[in-house]
């Protein structure tokens, strides 16, 4: 793995440029399959929202827009810091790189923390399908349709949260490697590839936020 003294060059590649190109195509292909993965879930959402518009907008009003909006800001900031981290790596600026990656980690963890508070409050209000959903206290004629909305809410945000968690794990690997000074202007693409993944996770939330939180009747 240290052929000809080039750090990070794997033996199947001729040079780092080829390795970078392969890795980028690999991550884009991975993001493409993620789009289809979430696409199936969004499609399910679209079908049911079309079938039960009232239940969906009632269900949406049970969510707390403030939490959703705050988390949107948090994720947008994290996208900014990850973009800056890529730039810092390209510029050989180790201090900035580590700083921006730590900031990304902070925002990602904040997001998960808020999510935890949200899920707990849903639990207290008996709104988690399959665990403690109780529609009797709802001011809606067909509480089972609201349960369907909540099912989709938990499936979508749960899967998204899982992706944030994976991002946190990757960051926990990237940060020590950055501290060791391994990423340089010639070998920075692991940071860039993580950036691609992270922006994708961010964009999914950008779609989830309006579709889930903002369709409620005020």
């Amino acid at each position, binding site marked *: 793995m240290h052929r000809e003294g080039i750090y990070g060059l794997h033996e199947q590649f001729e040079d780092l440029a080829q390795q970078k190109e392969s890795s980028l195509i690999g991550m884009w292909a991975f993001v493409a399959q993620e789009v289809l993965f979430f696409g199936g879930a969004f499609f399910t959402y679209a079908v049911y929202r079309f079938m039960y518009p009232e239940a969906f907008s009632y269900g949406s009003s049970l969510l707390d827009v403030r939490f959703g909006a705050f988390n949107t800001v948090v994720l947008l900031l994290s996208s900014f810091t990850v973009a800056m981290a890529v730039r810092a790596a390209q510029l050989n600026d180790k201090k900035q790189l580590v700083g921006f990656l730590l900031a990304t980690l902070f925002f990602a963890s904040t997001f998960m923390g808020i999510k935890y508070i949200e899920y707990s409050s849903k639990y207290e209000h008996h709104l988690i*399908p399959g665990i403690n959903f109780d529609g009797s206290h709802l001011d809606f004629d067909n509480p089972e349709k609201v349960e369907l909305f909540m*099912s989709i809410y938990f499936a979508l945000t749960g899967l998204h949260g899982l992706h944030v968690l994976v991002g946190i794990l990757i960051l926990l690997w990237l940060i020590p490697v950055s501290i060791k000074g391994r990423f340089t202007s010639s070998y920075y693409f692991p940071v860039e590839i993580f950036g691609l993944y992270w922006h994708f996770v961010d964009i999914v939330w950008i779609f989830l936020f309006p579709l889930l939180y903002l369709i409620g009747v005020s």
Partner: protein
Amino acid sequence: MHQKENVNYLNVEYGIKSWLFTKDHKRIGVMYLIAVTLFFIVGALAALGVRLELLTPEGDLMSSDAYNRFFTMHGVIMIFLFLIPSIPAVLGNFVLPIMIGARDLAFPRINLLSWYIFIFSGIIGIIGILKGGIDTGWTFYTPYSSIYSHTPVVLVAFAAFLVGFSSILTGLNFIATVHTMRAPGLSWFRLPLFVWAMYATSLVIMLGTPVVAITLVLLILDRAVGLGIFNPTLGGDPVLFQHLFWFYSHPAVYIMILPAMGVVSEVVSAFSRKKVFGYKFIVYSSMAIAVIGFLVWGHHMYTSGQSALSGIVFSILTVLVGVPTAVKILNWTVTLYRGSVSFEAPMLYALGFMGLFIIGGLTGLFLAALGTDVHLHDTYFVVAHFHYTMVGGAIMGFLAGLHYWWPKITGRMYPEFLGKFGAIVVFVGFHLTFLPQFVAGYLGMPRRYHYYVPEFQFYNILSTAGATILGAGMILVIGYLVWSARYGEKAVSNPWRAVGLEWETASPPHPHNFEEVPRVEWDAYDYEYKYKKEGVSFA
């Protein structure tokens, strides 16, 4: 023989650890071969149970419940653990990097990871069988699977979900490798057609598999956590599950057949000693199948209550997908014309593929047409149709490729006489198994039933007799291949005198495939160029 044996990927290091931690695409290919063969045997045993039970109209061998589990496990194992990985993960893994002159795939560690994911999900699937197996059919239709079935659906659905990621990782690897690691001079339109087929397959894998993954996740959440996404009592729509399921599972049949078509292109050209006719048309037809294949899933739901308009649209698109397939068959046939054709075992399988796939494809048109499908839906006609494409197509293609590249993989020749004999036995057994099912299905015998009316017994006896011959043929093939891996005659680097980078390197290849990076100065299948260079005239 005082000459020291050359270093190759098999003898470069020894021991079980050197295999389990290898990053060499060739070794991973061999590990996949062993794994899929084992799963094939389990799936075949389940089929044996089904066929034995159907010998008589009464249920005298097993209960209806057991029968449901048998045919489900046959389907789940054969599709998810054998057909989908068979050609890409075994042959593609082994020959694709060599064919493009690369040292390895772009991501060798991810390649190894895909094997472990495959094995892990296989083990979960086997645990599911040991816990009694599931009875939903391989299609996992809701709400039966999500609410009513009393079998370990979560376990098996999770295995199917997980195994999808092993094929996604393989597809991702192939795409990146073909894009960035071709040898100098090897432009896109000089790529062997097998590589093109793998590329098209990888696209389908990357864009289809995640959709079934999310569908199975939602199913698992419904069943394990109690969400109600497909639960009709909450207003959930089970037909939505069918849409999502078939959005992957119909393209999945192209994941199974496109690689086989790639193998046939290689084999037909090699054993005709002639350039493939209409190279670009075959390339485009592979891509066309990959694209149109995504637009036909609704033909599985003509009777599930979708609108008449979508039925018509899906019917037209389904007929359309037959066109690129027919282009391929035509081009292979013309390739044979005036070639110096010889009939070694790979060629027999390739010709068998062409014959069987024509029947499989044409009967597909019966099912694509709305009117006839309402009559034939859920009958043995459908079972016969997809076995003609999947067994007659995908397995014939796999066996053609396995024999063709066997000398490259093992460095040994398989016994040619037994090879030809085995191919004929498999061919005959296959026809006898599935041809009667067309008739029984047309006359109205439904699929997936334990009991049937006595008038169908004649066809079922024929079918079970054929399955026995087919099984014997497969045992013979597996037997002599395993034997020849150790005791077969040593293979030269290019036993078929074929054109292609994989034949330029030693059999078995060097751990890094080539001693030095090859330069490609010829088009794919350029037999004139090759023979002129060697001073051989074939005219």
